[in-house]
Protein backbone atom coordinates (compact mmCIF):
# COMPACT_ATOMS: atom_id res chain seq x y z
CA UNK A 1 0.00 0.00 0.00
CA UNK A 2 1.25 3.46 -0.87
CA UNK A 3 0.59 5.42 2.30
CA UNK A 4 1.18 8.74 0.61
CA UNK A 5 -1.08 8.27 -2.40
CA UNK A 6 -3.74 10.97 -2.79
CA UNK A 7 -6.57 11.21 -5.27
CA UNK A 8 -8.00 14.64 -6.12
CA UNK A 9 -10.07 15.86 -9.06
CA UNK A 10 -7.93 15.21 -12.14
CA UNK A 11 -4.94 14.23 -10.01
CA UNK A 12 -3.66 10.78 -9.14
CA UNK A 13 -0.78 11.72 -6.87
CA UNK A 14 1.80 9.16 -5.74
CA UNK A 15 2.43 11.52 -2.86
CA UNK A 16 0.87 14.83 -1.79
CA UNK A 17 4.02 16.96 -2.26
CA UNK A 18 4.52 19.32 -5.18
CA UNK A 19 6.60 22.41 -5.85
CA UNK A 20 4.50 25.59 -5.87
CA UNK A 21 4.12 27.69 -8.97
CA UNK A 22 6.82 30.31 -9.47
CA UNK A 23 9.31 28.51 -7.26
CA UNK A 24 10.28 25.78 -9.69
CA UNK A 25 10.30 27.38 -13.15
CA UNK A 26 9.32 24.65 -15.59
CA UNK A 27 11.39 22.07 -13.72
CA UNK A 28 14.51 22.15 -15.89
CA UNK A 29 16.87 23.47 -13.19
CA UNK A 30 15.72 21.00 -10.54
CA UNK A 31 15.85 18.10 -13.02
CA UNK A 32 19.64 18.45 -12.87
CA UNK A 33 19.47 17.74 -9.14
CA UNK A 34 16.94 14.90 -8.81
CA UNK A 35 14.41 12.80 -10.72
CA UNK A 36 11.25 14.90 -11.07
CA UNK A 37 9.17 11.69 -11.23
CA UNK A 38 9.58 11.49 -7.46
CA UNK A 39 7.22 14.46 -7.06
CA UNK A 40 3.49 14.16 -6.48
CA UNK A 41 2.89 16.83 -9.13
CA UNK A 42 4.53 19.98 -10.46
CA UNK A 43 2.87 23.38 -10.46
CA UNK A 44 4.60 25.14 -13.33
CA UNK A 45 5.36 28.84 -13.53
CA UNK A 46 2.41 31.09 -14.39
CA UNK A 47 1.72 31.24 -18.10
CA UNK A 48 0.23 34.23 -19.92
CA UNK A 49 -0.84 34.54 -23.57
CA UNK A 50 2.12 36.71 -24.54
CA UNK A 51 5.67 36.44 -23.18
CA UNK A 52 6.43 38.69 -20.21
CA UNK A 53 9.74 40.05 -18.98
CA UNK A 54 8.41 40.93 -15.56
CA UNK A 55 9.51 43.66 -13.19
CA UNK A 56 12.85 45.49 -12.94
CA UNK A 57 15.38 44.27 -10.34
CA UNK A 58 15.79 44.06 -7.38
CA UNK A 59 12.99 41.52 -7.43
CA UNK A 60 13.62 39.83 -4.08
CA UNK A 61 14.34 40.98 -0.55
CA UNK A 62 14.82 38.93 2.57
CA UNK A 63 12.59 39.44 5.61
CA UNK A 64 12.56 37.81 9.03
CA UNK A 65 11.76 34.13 8.37
CA UNK A 66 10.59 34.96 4.91
CA UNK A 67 11.16 36.77 1.66
CA UNK A 68 9.48 39.33 -0.54
CA UNK A 69 9.36 38.78 -4.26
CA UNK A 70 8.10 40.86 -7.14
CA UNK A 71 9.07 38.87 -10.22
CA UNK A 72 6.03 40.05 -12.19
CA UNK A 73 4.94 36.80 -13.88
CA UNK A 74 7.95 36.56 -16.16
CA UNK A 75 7.28 33.71 -18.58
CA UNK A 76 7.94 32.77 -22.21
CA UNK A 77 4.25 32.93 -23.21
CA UNK A 78 1.59 30.34 -24.02
CA UNK A 79 3.04 29.25 -27.38
CA UNK A 80 6.45 28.40 -25.99
CA UNK A 81 5.12 26.76 -22.82
CA UNK A 82 2.82 24.49 -24.85
CA UNK A 83 5.36 23.93 -27.63
CA UNK A 84 8.54 23.46 -25.59
CA UNK A 85 8.22 23.32 -21.81
CA UNK A 86 5.28 20.89 -21.51
CA UNK A 87 6.62 18.41 -24.11
CA UNK A 88 9.99 18.47 -22.30
CA UNK A 89 8.25 17.75 -18.98
CA UNK A 90 6.41 14.78 -20.50
CA UNK A 91 9.56 12.64 -20.10
CA UNK A 92 8.76 12.51 -16.37
CA UNK A 93 6.06 10.40 -14.76
CA UNK A 94 4.43 13.33 -12.99
CA UNK A 95 1.15 15.20 -13.47
CA UNK A 96 1.46 18.89 -14.28
CA UNK A 97 -0.74 21.59 -12.79
CA UNK A 98 -0.59 24.57 -15.12
CA UNK A 99 -0.82 27.99 -13.48
CA UNK A 100 -2.91 30.28 -15.69
CA UNK A 101 -2.55 34.06 -15.48
CA UNK A 102 -3.67 37.12 -17.43
CA UNK A 103 -4.69 40.76 -17.40
CA UNK A 104 -8.27 40.44 -18.62
CA UNK A 105 -10.82 37.64 -18.67
CA UNK A 106 -10.11 36.79 -22.32
CA UNK A 107 -6.44 36.13 -21.47
CA UNK A 108 -7.30 33.58 -18.82
CA UNK A 109 -9.80 31.87 -21.10
CA UNK A 110 -7.34 31.74 -24.00
CA UNK A 111 -4.53 30.24 -21.90
CA UNK A 112 -6.83 27.79 -20.12
CA UNK A 113 -8.37 26.53 -23.36
CA UNK A 114 -5.03 25.89 -25.01
CA UNK A 115 -2.89 24.68 -22.13
CA UNK A 116 -5.53 22.25 -20.81
CA UNK A 117 -5.21 20.30 -24.07
CA UNK A 118 -1.63 19.29 -23.33
CA UNK A 119 -1.46 15.58 -22.55
CA UNK A 120 0.51 15.94 -19.32
CA UNK A 121 -1.53 18.84 -17.90
CA UNK A 122 -3.81 17.17 -15.34
CA UNK A 123 -5.30 20.29 -13.82
CA UNK A 124 -5.24 24.08 -14.01
CA UNK A 125 -4.44 26.49 -11.22
CA UNK A 126 -6.22 29.75 -11.88
CA UNK A 127 -3.96 32.53 -10.69
CA UNK A 128 -6.31 35.24 -9.47
CA UNK A 129 -3.98 36.24 -6.69
CA UNK A 130 -0.62 37.46 -8.00
CA UNK A 131 0.13 40.67 -6.10
CA UNK A 132 2.94 41.80 -8.40
CA UNK A 133 1.29 42.78 -11.64
CA UNK A 134 -0.53 46.03 -12.30
CA UNK A 135 -3.64 44.60 -13.91
CA UNK A 136 -5.35 41.26 -13.58
CA UNK A 137 -4.01 38.83 -11.03
CA UNK A 138 -5.07 40.00 -7.62
CA UNK A 139 -7.87 42.18 -8.98
CA UNK A 140 -9.75 38.99 -9.85
CA UNK A 141 -8.95 37.54 -6.48
CA UNK A 142 -10.40 40.15 -4.18
CA UNK A 143 -13.94 40.64 -5.51
CA UNK A 144 -16.08 37.49 -5.02
CA UNK A 145 -18.44 38.10 -7.91
CA UNK A 146 -15.55 38.72 -10.35
CA UNK A 147 -13.75 35.58 -9.17
CA UNK A 148 -16.90 33.53 -9.61
CA UNK A 149 -17.48 34.77 -13.15
CA UNK A 150 -13.89 34.16 -14.17
CA UNK A 151 -13.97 30.65 -12.72
CA UNK A 152 -17.15 29.93 -14.66
CA UNK A 153 -15.66 31.19 -17.95
CA UNK A 154 -12.49 29.16 -17.50
CA UNK A 155 -14.44 26.04 -16.51
CA UNK A 156 -16.40 26.32 -19.77
CA UNK A 157 -13.25 25.95 -21.88
CA UNK A 158 -10.94 23.84 -19.73
CA UNK A 159 -10.53 20.16 -20.56
CA UNK A 160 -9.15 19.40 -17.09
CA UNK A 161 -10.29 20.22 -13.54
CA UNK A 162 -9.76 23.80 -12.41
CA UNK A 163 -8.27 24.74 -9.05
CA UNK A 164 -8.46 28.40 -8.07
CA UNK A 165 -5.53 29.96 -6.21
CA UNK A 166 -6.82 32.26 -3.49
CA UNK A 167 -5.20 35.42 -2.25
CA UNK A 168 -4.80 36.00 1.49
CA UNK A 169 -5.04 39.75 0.86
CA UNK A 170 -8.78 39.84 1.52
CA UNK A 171 -10.97 40.57 4.50
CA UNK A 172 -13.06 37.42 4.14
CA UNK A 173 -11.33 34.41 2.59
CA UNK A 174 -14.37 32.16 3.11
CA UNK A 175 -16.48 34.46 0.96
CA UNK A 176 -13.91 34.17 -1.85
CA UNK A 177 -13.81 30.38 -1.53
CA UNK A 178 -17.58 30.13 -1.67
CA UNK A 179 -17.63 32.38 -4.74
CA UNK A 180 -15.23 30.19 -6.73
CA UNK A 181 -17.10 27.09 -5.58
CA UNK A 182 -20.28 28.64 -6.95
CA UNK A 183 -18.36 29.36 -10.16
CA UNK A 184 -17.71 25.66 -10.56
CA UNK A 185 -14.15 25.30 -9.28
CA UNK A 186 -12.99 21.71 -8.75
CA UNK A 187 -10.58 22.64 -5.98
CA UNK A 188 -8.77 25.44 -4.22
CA UNK A 189 -5.09 26.17 -3.81
CA UNK A 190 -4.12 28.55 -1.04
CA UNK A 191 -2.49 30.76 -0.03
CA UNK A 192 -0.68 33.01 -2.47
CA UNK A 193 1.72 35.59 -1.01
CA UNK A 194 0.84 38.46 1.33
CA UNK A 195 1.55 41.95 0.05
CA UNK A 196 4.48 43.48 1.92
CA UNK A 197 7.27 46.02 1.71
CA UNK A 198 10.81 46.65 2.95
CA UNK A 199 12.65 49.94 3.07
CA UNK A 200 16.38 50.55 2.73
CA UNK A 201 17.81 52.16 5.87
CA UNK A 202 20.33 54.27 3.94
CA UNK A 203 18.08 55.60 1.19
CA UNK A 204 14.69 55.39 2.90
CA UNK A 205 13.33 53.91 -0.31
CA UNK A 206 11.71 50.51 -1.01
CA UNK A 207 14.26 47.75 -1.65
CA UNK A 208 12.15 46.16 -4.37
CA UNK A 209 12.01 48.04 -7.68
CA UNK A 210 8.28 47.23 -7.71
CA UNK A 211 8.07 48.85 -4.25
CA UNK A 212 5.78 46.10 -2.90
CA UNK A 213 6.19 42.36 -3.15
CA UNK A 214 4.64 39.10 -2.04
CA UNK A 215 5.69 37.76 1.35
CA UNK A 216 6.35 34.03 1.51
CA UNK A 217 8.28 31.54 3.61
CA UNK A 218 7.84 30.30 7.20
CA UNK A 219 6.63 33.76 8.28
CA UNK A 220 3.30 33.30 6.49
CA UNK A 221 2.58 29.74 7.61
CA UNK A 222 0.24 30.61 10.52
CA UNK A 223 -1.84 32.75 8.16
CA UNK A 224 -2.10 29.86 5.70
CA UNK A 225 -3.04 27.39 8.42
CA UNK A 226 -5.76 29.67 9.76
CA UNK A 227 -7.23 30.34 6.31
CA UNK A 228 -7.20 26.67 5.27
CA UNK A 229 -8.84 25.78 8.57
CA UNK A 230 -11.64 28.24 7.86
CA UNK A 231 -12.11 27.52 4.16
CA UNK A 232 -11.92 23.73 4.37
CA UNK A 233 -14.91 23.69 6.72
CA UNK A 234 -16.95 26.15 4.68
CA UNK A 235 -16.76 24.68 1.18
CA UNK A 236 -17.01 21.20 -0.27
CA UNK A 237 -13.81 21.40 -2.30
CA UNK A 238 -10.40 19.81 -1.80
CA UNK A 239 -7.57 22.18 -0.89
CA UNK A 240 -3.96 22.08 -1.97
CA UNK A 241 -2.30 24.00 0.85
CA UNK A 242 0.77 26.20 0.63
CA UNK A 243 2.44 29.04 2.50
CA UNK A 244 5.78 28.50 4.21
CA UNK A 245 5.88 24.70 4.05
CA UNK A 246 9.49 23.71 4.79
CA UNK A 247 9.35 20.39 6.66
CA UNK A 248 7.39 17.13 6.84
CA UNK A 249 5.92 18.40 10.12
CA UNK A 250 4.60 21.45 8.29
CA UNK A 251 2.90 19.12 5.80
CA UNK A 252 1.13 17.34 8.62
CA UNK A 253 -0.01 20.64 10.10
CA UNK A 254 -1.46 21.72 6.74
CA UNK A 255 -3.34 18.41 6.50
CA UNK A 256 -4.66 18.88 10.03
CA UNK A 257 -5.91 22.32 8.99
CA UNK A 258 -7.83 20.80 6.10
CA UNK A 259 -5.48 20.42 3.13
CA UNK A 260 -5.54 17.28 0.96
CA UNK A 261 -2.15 17.94 -0.65
CA UNK A 262 0.62 20.46 -0.07
CA UNK A 263 2.82 22.65 -2.24
CA UNK A 264 6.33 23.73 -1.29
CA UNK A 265 7.44 27.19 -2.42
CA UNK A 266 10.18 29.32 -0.94
CA UNK A 267 11.80 26.32 0.77
CA UNK A 268 12.98 25.16 -2.69
CA UNK A 269 15.27 28.21 -2.79
CA UNK A 270 16.75 27.45 0.60
CA UNK A 271 17.21 23.74 -0.08
CA UNK A 272 16.73 22.65 -3.69
CA UNK A 273 16.33 19.04 -2.53
CA UNK A 274 13.56 19.85 -0.03
CA UNK A 275 10.64 18.22 -1.93
CA UNK A 276 12.18 14.71 -2.20
CA UNK A 277 13.46 15.07 1.38
CA UNK A 278 9.96 15.77 2.71
CA UNK A 279 8.50 12.89 0.67
CA UNK A 280 11.09 10.57 2.15
CA UNK A 281 10.43 11.73 5.72
CA UNK A 282 6.63 11.59 5.63
CA UNK A 283 6.10 7.84 6.28
CA UNK A 284 8.15 7.93 9.50
CA UNK A 285 6.18 10.96 10.62
CA UNK A 286 2.88 9.12 9.98
CA UNK A 287 4.23 6.30 12.15
CA UNK A 288 5.22 8.71 14.86
CA UNK A 289 1.71 10.13 15.12
CA UNK A 290 -0.04 6.81 14.56
CA UNK A 291 -1.51 7.26 11.09
CA UNK A 292 -1.80 4.56 8.45
CA UNK A 293 -2.43 6.81 5.50
CA UNK A 294 -1.83 10.50 4.78
CA UNK A 295 -5.42 11.15 3.65
CA UNK A 296 -6.87 10.20 7.04
CA UNK A 297 -5.05 13.20 8.47
CA UNK A 298 -7.00 15.82 6.53
CA UNK A 299 -9.09 17.98 8.83
CA UNK A 300 -7.89 16.53 12.12
CA UNK A 301 -8.26 20.01 13.63
CA UNK A 302 -11.91 20.31 12.76
CA UNK A 303 -14.54 20.16 15.49
CA UNK A 304 -16.68 17.01 15.64
CA UNK A 305 -19.78 18.90 14.55
CA UNK A 306 -17.98 20.16 11.48
CA UNK A 307 -18.84 17.29 9.16
CA UNK A 308 -19.90 19.23 6.11
CA UNK A 309 -16.49 19.68 4.64
CA UNK A 310 -14.80 17.83 1.80
CA UNK A 311 -14.43 14.07 2.23
CA UNK A 312 -12.09 12.88 4.93
CA UNK A 313 -11.30 9.94 2.63
Amino acid at each position, binding site marked *: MNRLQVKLPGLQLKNPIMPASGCFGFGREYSNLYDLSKLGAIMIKATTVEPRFGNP*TPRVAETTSGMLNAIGLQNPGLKKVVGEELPWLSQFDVPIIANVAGSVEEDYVAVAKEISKASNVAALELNISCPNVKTGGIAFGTIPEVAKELTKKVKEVSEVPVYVKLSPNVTNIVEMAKAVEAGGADGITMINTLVGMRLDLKTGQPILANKTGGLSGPAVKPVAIRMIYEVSQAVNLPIIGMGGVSTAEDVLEFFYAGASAVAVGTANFV*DPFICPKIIEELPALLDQYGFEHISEVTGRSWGKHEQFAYHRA
Partner: protein
Amino acid sequence: MIKNEICTVVEQKEIAENIMELTLTGELVSEMNEPGQFVHIKVSDSAVPLLRRPISICRINQDRKTFTMIYRAEGEGTKLLGKKTAGETVDILGPLGNGFPVEECKLGETALLVGGGIGVPPLYELANRLVAKGVKIVAVLGFQTESVAFYEEKFASLGDTYIATVDGSRGTQGFVTDVIFQEKLEFDVLYSCGPTPMLKNLEKTFPDKKVFISLEERMGCGIGACFACVCHTADDPTGFSYKKVCTDGPVFKTGEVVL
Protein backbone atom coordinates in the same frame (compact mmCIF):
# COMPACT_ATOMS: atom_id res chain seq x y z
CA MET B 1 27.81 19.43 -11.19
CA ILE B 2 25.97 21.27 -8.42
CA LYS B 3 26.30 19.66 -5.02
CA ASN B 4 24.96 20.41 -1.56
CA GLU B 5 27.42 19.65 1.19
CA ILE B 6 28.07 20.54 4.79
CA CYS B 7 31.64 21.84 4.53
CA THR B 8 34.05 22.38 7.40
CA VAL B 9 35.82 25.63 8.24
CA VAL B 10 39.60 25.27 7.94
CA GLU B 11 40.38 28.87 8.76
CA GLN B 12 38.71 32.25 8.98
CA LYS B 13 40.39 35.59 9.55
CA GLU B 14 39.75 39.29 9.12
CA ILE B 15 42.23 40.49 6.48
CA ALA B 16 41.00 44.10 6.35
CA GLU B 17 38.31 46.09 8.11
CA ASN B 18 35.20 43.81 8.08
CA ILE B 19 36.74 41.87 5.19
CA MET B 20 36.78 38.16 6.01
CA GLU B 21 38.83 35.42 4.38
CA LEU B 22 37.15 32.04 4.88
CA THR B 23 38.63 28.70 3.82
CA LEU B 24 36.41 25.61 3.77
CA THR B 25 37.05 21.99 2.98
CA GLY B 26 34.68 19.53 1.32
CA GLU B 27 34.31 16.96 -1.44
CA LEU B 28 32.52 19.46 -3.70
CA VAL B 29 35.84 21.22 -4.28
CA SER B 30 36.46 18.56 -6.95
CA GLU B 31 33.57 20.10 -8.92
CA MET B 32 35.20 23.55 -8.95
CA ASN B 33 37.09 23.90 -12.17
CA GLU B 34 36.80 27.47 -13.37
CA PRO B 35 37.58 30.84 -11.83
CA GLY B 36 34.67 33.22 -11.22
CA GLN B 37 32.07 30.71 -10.08
CA PHE B 38 30.24 31.19 -6.80
CA VAL B 39 28.69 29.16 -4.00
CA HIS B 40 25.34 29.71 -2.29
CA ILE B 41 25.69 29.65 1.49
CA LYS B 42 23.12 28.90 4.19
CA VAL B 43 24.66 30.69 7.15
CA SER B 44 22.37 29.34 9.86
CA ASP B 45 20.28 26.25 10.53
CA SER B 46 17.26 28.35 11.43
CA ALA B 47 14.82 30.32 9.29
CA VAL B 48 16.69 33.54 10.15
CA PRO B 49 18.29 34.45 7.88
CA LEU B 50 16.23 32.38 5.50
CA LEU B 51 17.85 32.65 2.10
CA ARG B 52 21.29 31.57 1.01
CA ARG B 53 24.04 34.12 0.33
CA PRO B 54 25.89 34.02 -2.99
CA ILE B 55 29.64 34.47 -2.49
CA SER B 56 32.31 34.15 -5.16
CA ILE B 57 35.17 31.68 -4.98
CA CYS B 58 38.55 33.34 -4.54
CA ARG B 59 40.95 30.39 -4.57
CA ILE B 60 40.65 26.65 -5.18
CA ASN B 61 43.10 24.07 -3.87
CA GLN B 62 42.33 20.63 -5.31
CA ASP B 63 45.16 18.88 -3.46
CA ARG B 64 43.92 19.97 -0.06
CA LYS B 65 40.23 19.91 -1.11
CA THR B 66 39.81 23.48 0.10
CA PHE B 67 38.40 26.68 -1.33
CA THR B 68 38.68 30.22 -0.07
CA MET B 69 36.18 33.06 -0.17
CA ILE B 70 36.55 36.71 0.72
CA TYR B 71 33.49 38.68 1.71
CA ARG B 72 32.47 41.80 3.56
CA ALA B 73 30.76 41.02 6.89
CA GLU B 74 28.19 43.77 6.70
CA GLY B 75 24.68 42.36 6.55
CA GLU B 76 22.87 40.04 8.93
CA GLY B 77 23.92 36.87 7.10
CA THR B 78 27.56 37.68 6.42
CA LYS B 79 28.04 38.87 10.03
CA LEU B 80 26.84 35.46 11.23
CA LEU B 81 29.11 33.73 8.75
CA GLY B 82 32.00 35.83 10.01
CA LYS B 83 31.68 34.25 13.45
CA LYS B 84 32.39 30.73 12.20
CA THR B 85 35.68 29.34 13.42
CA ALA B 86 37.85 26.36 12.44
CA GLY B 87 36.03 23.04 12.80
CA GLU B 88 32.55 24.53 12.51
CA THR B 89 30.41 23.67 9.51
CA VAL B 90 28.78 25.66 6.71
CA ASP B 91 26.01 24.50 4.35
CA ILE B 92 27.27 25.02 0.80
CA LEU B 93 25.43 24.69 -2.52
CA GLY B 94 27.70 24.84 -5.52
CA PRO B 95 29.69 25.47 -7.52
CA LEU B 96 27.25 27.72 -9.38
CA GLY B 97 27.35 29.83 -12.51
CA ASN B 98 29.78 30.26 -15.36
CA GLY B 99 33.18 31.70 -14.60
CA PHE B 100 35.76 33.73 -16.53
CA PRO B 101 36.91 32.20 -19.84
CA VAL B 102 40.63 31.61 -19.29
CA GLU B 103 40.96 30.32 -22.86
CA GLU B 104 40.19 33.77 -24.30
CA CYS B 105 43.68 34.92 -23.39
CA LYS B 106 46.49 33.14 -25.25
CA LEU B 107 50.01 32.29 -24.21
CA GLY B 108 52.17 35.41 -24.35
CA GLU B 109 49.24 37.81 -24.37
CA THR B 110 48.44 40.28 -21.59
CA ALA B 111 45.36 40.16 -19.40
CA LEU B 112 44.21 43.22 -17.47
CA LEU B 113 42.38 42.30 -14.27
CA VAL B 114 40.25 45.09 -12.85
CA GLY B 115 38.62 44.58 -9.48
CA GLY B 116 36.51 46.88 -7.36
CA GLY B 117 36.19 46.28 -3.61
CA ILE B 118 34.59 42.97 -2.85
CA GLY B 119 34.71 42.22 -6.59
CA VAL B 120 38.46 41.58 -6.32
CA PRO B 121 38.36 38.00 -4.91
CA PRO B 122 37.24 35.99 -7.99
CA LEU B 123 40.03 37.63 -9.97
CA TYR B 124 42.62 35.97 -7.75
CA GLU B 125 41.91 32.41 -8.88
CA LEU B 126 41.72 33.76 -12.43
CA ALA B 127 45.12 35.47 -12.06
CA ASN B 128 46.72 32.24 -10.89
CA ARG B 129 45.29 30.25 -13.78
CA LEU B 130 46.30 32.84 -16.36
CA VAL B 131 49.85 33.01 -15.04
CA ALA B 132 50.03 29.20 -14.98
CA LYS B 133 49.27 29.08 -18.70
CA GLY B 134 51.85 31.74 -19.54
CA VAL B 135 49.70 34.85 -19.75
CA LYS B 136 51.13 38.14 -18.47
CA ILE B 137 48.77 39.72 -16.00
CA VAL B 138 48.38 43.31 -14.87
CA ALA B 139 46.04 44.00 -11.97
CA VAL B 140 44.25 47.23 -11.05
CA LEU B 141 42.45 46.98 -7.73
CA GLY B 142 40.13 49.72 -6.50
CA PHE B 143 38.99 50.24 -2.92
CA GLN B 144 37.12 52.90 -0.96
CA THR B 145 40.02 53.45 1.42
CA GLU B 146 43.23 51.80 2.62
CA SER B 147 41.63 50.10 5.64
CA VAL B 148 39.43 47.91 3.42
CA ALA B 149 42.13 47.10 0.83
CA PHE B 150 43.39 43.53 0.59
CA TYR B 151 45.45 41.09 -1.50
CA GLU B 152 47.79 43.73 -2.97
CA GLU B 153 50.88 41.59 -2.27
CA LYS B 154 49.21 38.41 -3.53
CA PHE B 155 48.43 40.00 -6.89
CA ALA B 156 51.84 41.72 -6.96
CA SER B 157 53.51 38.31 -6.79
CA LEU B 158 51.71 37.36 -10.02
CA GLY B 159 52.14 40.56 -12.05
CA ASP B 160 52.26 44.36 -12.04
CA THR B 161 49.66 45.54 -9.56
CA TYR B 162 48.19 49.03 -9.12
CA ILE B 163 45.94 50.25 -6.34
CA ALA B 164 43.37 53.04 -6.49
CA THR B 165 41.47 54.37 -3.51
CA VAL B 166 38.61 56.85 -3.60
CA ASP B 167 40.18 58.93 -0.81
CA GLY B 168 43.77 58.52 -1.97
CA SER B 169 44.87 56.82 1.26
CA ARG B 170 46.60 54.10 -0.76
CA GLY B 171 47.90 54.15 -4.35
CA THR B 172 46.32 56.49 -6.87
CA GLN B 173 43.49 58.71 -5.72
CA GLY B 174 40.44 58.04 -7.86
CA PHE B 175 38.93 55.14 -9.74
CA VAL B 176 40.42 52.12 -11.48
CA THR B 177 39.88 53.75 -14.87
CA ASP B 178 42.05 56.70 -13.76
CA VAL B 179 44.91 54.26 -13.17
CA ILE B 180 44.40 52.55 -16.53
CA PHE B 181 44.72 55.92 -18.33
CA GLN B 182 47.52 57.36 -16.20
CA GLU B 183 49.65 54.26 -16.56
CA LYS B 184 48.61 53.79 -20.21
CA LEU B 185 47.98 50.11 -19.53
CA GLU B 186 47.82 47.90 -22.61
CA PHE B 187 46.07 44.54 -22.76
CA ASP B 188 44.60 41.86 -25.02
CA VAL B 189 41.77 40.77 -22.74
CA LEU B 190 40.19 42.59 -19.80
CA TYR B 191 38.52 40.69 -16.96
CA SER B 192 36.60 42.59 -14.31
CA CYS B 193 34.39 42.24 -11.28
CA GLY B 194 33.06 45.05 -9.12
CA PRO B 195 30.33 47.66 -8.74
CA THR B 196 28.03 48.08 -11.77
CA PRO B 197 29.03 51.75 -12.41
CA MET B 198 32.66 50.58 -12.72
CA LEU B 199 31.68 47.80 -15.13
CA LYS B 200 29.60 50.24 -17.18
CA ASN B 201 32.53 52.60 -17.37
CA LEU B 202 34.86 49.84 -18.57
CA GLU B 203 32.32 48.73 -21.18
CA LYS B 204 32.03 52.28 -22.47
CA THR B 205 35.78 52.91 -22.40
CA PHE B 206 36.79 49.78 -24.31
CA PRO B 207 34.00 49.12 -26.84
CA ASP B 208 36.32 47.32 -29.27
CA LYS B 209 38.22 45.17 -26.78
CA LYS B 210 37.59 41.71 -25.43
CA VAL B 211 36.13 42.50 -22.01
CA PHE B 212 34.55 40.00 -19.60
CA ILE B 213 32.62 41.22 -16.57
CA SER B 214 31.13 39.48 -13.57
CA LEU B 215 27.78 40.85 -12.40
CA GLU B 216 26.21 40.97 -8.99
CA GLU B 217 22.45 40.85 -8.34
CA ARG B 218 20.15 39.92 -5.48
CA MET B 219 19.41 36.23 -5.88
CA GLY B 220 16.79 33.81 -4.67
CA CYS B 221 17.56 30.23 -5.60
CA GLY B 222 20.92 30.70 -7.32
CA ILE B 223 20.18 27.86 -9.75
CA GLY B 224 18.02 29.62 -12.34
CA ALA B 225 14.53 28.73 -11.17
CA CYS B 226 13.19 31.82 -9.41
CA PHE B 227 13.88 34.55 -12.00
CA ALA B 228 15.02 37.05 -9.35
CA CYS B 229 18.35 37.96 -10.99
CA VAL B 230 17.47 38.49 -14.64
CA CYS B 231 18.75 41.23 -16.93
CA HIS B 232 17.83 42.34 -20.43
CA THR B 233 20.03 41.30 -23.34
CA ALA B 234 21.78 44.08 -25.23
CA ASP B 235 20.24 43.11 -28.60
CA ASP B 236 16.72 43.33 -27.16
CA PRO B 237 16.99 45.93 -24.37
CA THR B 238 13.27 46.43 -23.78
CA GLY B 239 11.91 43.10 -25.03
CA PHE B 240 11.32 39.67 -23.59
CA SER B 241 14.75 38.11 -24.04
CA TYR B 242 16.79 37.86 -20.88
CA LYS B 243 19.80 36.33 -19.17
CA LYS B 244 19.93 35.04 -15.62
CA VAL B 245 22.92 36.29 -13.68
CA CYS B 246 23.08 33.08 -11.63
CA THR B 247 23.14 30.47 -14.41
CA ASP B 248 23.87 32.33 -17.66
CA GLY B 249 26.45 34.43 -15.79
CA PRO B 250 27.67 35.77 -13.50
CA VAL B 251 30.38 36.37 -16.14
CA PHE B 252 29.27 37.95 -19.40
CA LYS B 253 31.11 39.45 -22.35
CA THR B 254 30.48 43.20 -22.57
CA GLY B 255 27.74 43.97 -25.05
CA GLU B 256 25.88 40.80 -24.12
CA VAL B 257 23.54 42.18 -21.45
CA VAL B 258 22.22 45.58 -20.40
CA LEU B 259 24.08 46.82 -17.34
